[in-house]
């Protein structure tokens, strides 16, 4: 009887993970394999794919639009990640410090609202804000000497605007991550530092930041991957224009697949993006491991 029990016992964990394993293998691993395979084909979705070897990748290397999309993608990462990290830490530090005050609680809720809003909706709303000739918006931007209606149409500024909107959109998400890290730091550390005569800034740089390190690494990684994958927001805000100034790899893959019916080529673009994300993920894993060993 005991043997029978232990048999079921040993099977139970496998049964628990069966549904999620099926989902992951089918929809994640399966699609990655299909994408890699189709990257080596000429495929227009409607007819059978034809093997074309490295043709798509060879063409990518001489495709100026791809290079521009890659450059835009990396630029967007450079704009979004540092801003999101710094603003996320500062805002969460402020919110944690004021978490018991009514205004702090209110701000805590407000900062998370954009995260709940769909990217597409946020894109349309910001486009209307900037282009809609709303007197209040024009006056606000006027304080900084900026005409909002000129921003999205300027190929030099459009990508920066997209980046700033993305920072605004996801800030609440990172604030939650940083806040949980801040709340887990023991108050005793700060008390001991105060006894030793440390001021606020000293406490922040010598206690808060080092103890937040695992959270920062995690948030930076998430911010990196999210900014690499950013699609809906850009699609609705600028559509990749003007003159492809805001076309990123994801957007280019999408238009190649559904606009130009070059699904094989689009898969090759996606695979390049996948490689970039994979490298970043491996780097993050290494950093995390080192960080854990340090702790």
């Amino acid at each position, binding site marked *: 009887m005991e043997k029978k029990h232990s048999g079921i016992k040993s*099977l*139970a964990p496998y049964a628990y993970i*069966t549904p999620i394993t099926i989902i992951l293998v089918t929809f994640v691993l399966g699609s990655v394999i299909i994408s890699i395979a189709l990257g080596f084909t000429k495929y227009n979705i409607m007819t059978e794919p034809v093997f074309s070897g490295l043709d798509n990748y060879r063409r990518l290397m001489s495709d100026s639009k791809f290079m521009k999309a890659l450059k835009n993608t990396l630029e967007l990462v450079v704009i979004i990640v540092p801003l999101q990290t710094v603003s996320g830490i500062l805002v969460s530090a402020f919110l944690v410090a004021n978490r018991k005050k009514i205004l702090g609680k209110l701000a805590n809720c407000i900062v998370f609202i954009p995260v709940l809003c769909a990217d597409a909706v946020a894109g349309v709303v910001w486009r209307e804000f900037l282009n809609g*000739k709303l007197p209040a918006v024009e006056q606000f931007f006027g304080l900084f000497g900026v005409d909002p209606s000129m921003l999205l*149409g*300027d190929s030099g500024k459009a990508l920066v605007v997209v980046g700033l909107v993305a920072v605004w959109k996801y800030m609440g998400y990172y604030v939650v991550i940083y806040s949980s890290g801040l709340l887990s730091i023991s108050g005793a550390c700060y008390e001991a530092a105060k006894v030793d005569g440390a001021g606020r800034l000293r406490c922040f740089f010598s206690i808060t930041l080092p103890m937040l390190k695992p959270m920062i690494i995690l948030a930076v990684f998430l911010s990196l991957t999210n900014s690499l994958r950013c699609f809906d927001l850009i699609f609705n805000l600028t559509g990749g224009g003007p003159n492809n100034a805001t076309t990123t790899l994801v957007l280019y893959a999408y238009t190649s697949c559904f606009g*130009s019916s070059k699904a094989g080529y689009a898969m090759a673009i996606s695979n390049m993006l996948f490689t970039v994300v994979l490298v970043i993920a491996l780097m993050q894993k290494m950093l995390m491991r080192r960080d854990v060993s340090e702790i």
Partner: protein
Amino acid sequence: MKKKIISILIVLAMSAALCAGCGNNGSEEEKQGSGGKTLDVWVAPLDDDTVNNWKPLLKDWEKRTDCTVNIKVVPWDSYEETYMTALNSGEGPDVGYMYNEMFPTYIDAGAVEDMSDYVTEEDKAEYKYLGNGYMMEGQYGWPLVTGVPFVLYYNEDILAELGESAPQTWEDFVRICKAATKDTDGDGEIDQYGYAAGMSTSEVGAMQVLNAYYYSALWQNGGQVYSDDMKSVTFADEAGTEAVTWIKELTQYMNPDFMSQSWSEAFANVFGQGKSAFGVYRSSQTDETMFGETYPDLKWDYVTSLKNKDYGTFGATDCLTLMSGAEDKDLAMDFIKYVTGAEFMAQYHEKCPGAALTVSEPYAGDEKMERIYTEDIGKWHGLQAGPCGADILTQLSADFQGIMTDDMTVEEALKEAEDYANNLLDEYWADKE
């Protein structure tokens, strides 16, 4: 123990449900088993409630053919995705609805049928725009929606103040634009423009900037997108370069935020508010009524097309098409002819005004707009449907924006677009051979 067994059972049930969810829903069997014929028709949102506007008008046809029509309205924002993914999984419609730029890919893939064999002499005499559905050496489209060309609207008050009348030529247009661009309230800032333009593609898609501004200039200057044999592009020739240079020079008379606004936004925000002499808009038979409500203080009229070397402005022709996957092609074709015929369309246009597709259907619309379909009918037309169309035009649109934002010179941009297009075409024709 009991708890564990229950948990395992729940897990098994979830796994079974997951597998079942991925399986076939058996709709095919159901369809065949139900007896009567069915016809799947996919259309774009043609009005505010296409299914309910069409369904009552289809009753007679359904009764006559003993066939139920399943209409699916595919939203514009996922239009091509829906078609491609459905065709890929063998679940496409019997009758589809396509715009001009969409056709070449589907023709090449063999997803749509050449309807030439179904065209009778009576059809040729009856259907006014049948030729617009003839492309790539076949009757792949049967026009359903047409007659909404982009035309040039003008503000009668501004023109009267300048002592001008409706422009006819490029020279007239530039002269009026120049005179109209000025500071009217004396604050030192220009607040009235010659030309309300919007070249952002975020809201409307990459092709729209070409539809609204580029094709008219190209055609009016005697240019074309493709060469006659479709083996190369000709938009970068002398006529094409001159046309784009002309538009570029007009930017000094445009609203300064023309790169941030789409053509429709610019029309509403600038021309509609009486702040410009001209604006381009996709016309409709009801503009007189509609503008009367939307812009009550605006006194306006329109010129269908300016003339330089020729007339020309873009008027889309969206067509119904017979899908290759249609089980009963004769039935599908009968449906296409019925829907585009005078009987159906006259009733439909009563609810939702549109251009008459047949000679038997009377004009139903505002009097002011009628000349687009009578004396000016030769001044607008659709686009040549050519190989790699979507790709070529998307690149051209981006380069056109590059010119307008001063990122590239006219020559650089057109050369880039031309090289890109010709490489694609070389590859396309090499594959064909």
